[in-house]
């Protein structure tokens, strides 16, 4: 169960090898979360994350491999994760891949794949997760969105538009779950220095996976529906969102 401070006993991570997810798990497990299910694409990376989670103090860790391009399988993957651990108190959706917009944006297959991995699969999985939590009568969902989806910019438009879709989906899912005991928290990190962004030039107000994890944990305690990381991004984007298109597209980013 989640305790009075919003700390979960059991955690399921879809996209369990992401740097943010791993940083979050290290903190949660050190603070008393006991049972963890990791689901991810790469079996070796999964095994590594599982070992790390055990070493941090988890009593039970299970791994489930899946491919986020197999949209048909999303529901089945979620089912097998739930049956591995029983009641799940916190579900973290950290599935996602960055694409190279210069080259990929002109290739229909890659466009489709980017939208599938970053939006379609996570949304399909979320709908099944929500069913499980409704039945449990409790549970929290954390969805990793991105400021890239808050207002999509040219330099990042594939990933950004997929995240925009996921962000809207997750925010609305939260409304449909009102009164069910389940709730959704959407996390909007800025530029995170992690393996996903390796080799890219850091944007202003960049952050680290550990800092994002801390902001998420504070959000869970406060029952926040949206978590910005770092928190001042909320103010920055409240301005950026209002800019006229003619100004927005001239911004050097």
């Amino acid at each position, binding site marked *: *169960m*989640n*305790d*009075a*401070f*919003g*700390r979960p*006993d059991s955690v399921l991570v879809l996209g369990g090898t992401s740097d943010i997810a791993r940083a979050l798990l290290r903190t949660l497990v050190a*603070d*008393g979360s006991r049972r963890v299910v990791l689901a991810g694409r790469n079996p070796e990376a999964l095994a590594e994350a599982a070992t790390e989670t055990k070493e941090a103090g988890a009593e039970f860790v299970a791994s489930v491999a899946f491919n986020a391009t197999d949209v048909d399988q999303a529901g089945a993957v979620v089912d097998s994760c739930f*049956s*591995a*651990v*029983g*009641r799940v108190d916190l579900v973290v959706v950290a599935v996602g891949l960055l694409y190279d917009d210069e080259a990929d944006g002109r290739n229909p297959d890659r466009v489709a794949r980017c939208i599938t991995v970053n939006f379609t699969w996570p949304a399909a999985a979320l709908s099944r997760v929500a069913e499980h939590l409704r*039945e*449990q*009568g*409790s549970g929290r969902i954390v969805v990793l969105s991105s400021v890239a989806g808050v207002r999509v910019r040219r330099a990042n438009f594939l990933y950004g538009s997929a995240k925009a879709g996921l962000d809207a989906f997750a925010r609305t899912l939260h409304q449909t779950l009102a*009164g*069910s*005991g389940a709730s959704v928290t959407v996390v909007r990190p800025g530029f995170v220095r992690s393996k996903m962004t390796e080799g890219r030039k850091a944007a202003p107000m960049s952050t680290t996976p550990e800092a994002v994890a801390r902001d998420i944990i*504070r959000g869970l*305690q*406060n*029952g926040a529906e949206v978590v910005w990381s770092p928190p001042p991004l909320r103010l920055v984007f409240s301005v950026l969102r209002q800019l006229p298109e003619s100004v927005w597209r001239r911004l050097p980013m």
Partner: protein
Amino acid sequence: MLSGWGRTAPSAASVTAPGLPEVVSLLVERAALAPRRQGLVARGMGRSYGDAAQCAGGLVVETKHLDHIDPVDPDTGAVRVGAGVSLDALVRAGLAAGWFLPVSPGTRQVSVGGAVAADVHGKNHHRDGSFCSHVSSLRLATPTGTHVVGPDDDPELFWATAGGMGLTGVVTEAVVRMRRVETAWMRVSTEQHRDLDSLMAGLERADARHGYSVAWVDCAARGSGFGRGLLDAGDHAEVDDLPPRRRANPLVPPRRTRLRMPPLVPPRIVNPLTVAAFNEAWFRKSPSRDGQVRHLAGFFHPLDAVADWNLLYGRRGFVQYQFVVGDKHRDLVRRSLEILHGVGAPSSLAVLKRFGPANPGPLSFPIPGWTLALDLAVGPPELRGALRRLDEMVAEVGGRVYLAKDGRLEPRAFRSMYPGLPELLAVRRRVDPDGVLQSDLGRRLQICEDAQP
């Protein structure tokens, strides 16, 4: 959505409120047959602070319609009541004939079933023990049938139910032995103490002289006034103690609670500034004085003055941390206040009291020594870690945390605080072999392990 009084960690469940004990029995016996077994637990008035009376995804059986009160036996004071009867209703039913609660917690807004399940204590614990020491029998609906139990009749099941947080069955009826009183008034003396040592010494002296005693500690005060507080000690007043105008009608019932919070949840009104101001004002308004006459309600149930004061803590809610440690480890009282100060989370309200001997209930909270109850707003980021450290220190010296107040204890600490747990689990295997009786608290503390795969 159901939550406890602290308004943390709500969860959803089906809720039913049967009017007959037989229906409760049927529900509990049939629960094991439900196709998707998600558990069942009783709920009285929802005054447990944490997650004791909620059962996510399962069935919550409210007892509010089990509200009959038989006449009080004029010789023994024994009264048979439904589990959903509030202590408020019981006081009103008994007081006119000169009967009062044997044990009175800080509010009258708890049900008799809840008082049994939490084995509640009051300001007279040092003399009279806890609530279940004054219960002569219980009617308990369990998955394997309905039992009538008492201290001499299946004592294992009776004592496992005392403080068992509803995990041994649903209490539908209890026989409570009331206490004879001549008036509805108390003779109270109040002492101001300038620091914690003086306050604790005062409490020890008061216990020897008075039937009831309690101290309030000002947690906002620092420096030399650290731990200053007020000590209230009292005894039931006799007719001769009353001022003449009260003597004609010495058994007047408590006034109804009229004040309520506004319907919209206000932002967090309890914050360090208001806490400091409130504590200062309370300390100053109560100079030391002896032998005042105060009504039972004001002495026992000051919190009942405002109906839903828990809303003062805002959206995130609050936790209460109440622990008890033996006499030898009284320094933990000071240490706990220092630790909470250290993380910037001083308690908004702190109540200190000494307990007398324990009863045989394996999960009953009181053991001899010092108990401190701290109200803490959820918010300061380091609060959770500080309470985990306190858990360790309390468990280390054989102390424990009160489950009725708890929403955040962890299974390992819980097991070391309650060495009698195997007795409760043995009773559960006997009356609930399928593990149907579950609550969010039971799951969190791994008492209901059967809920796991």
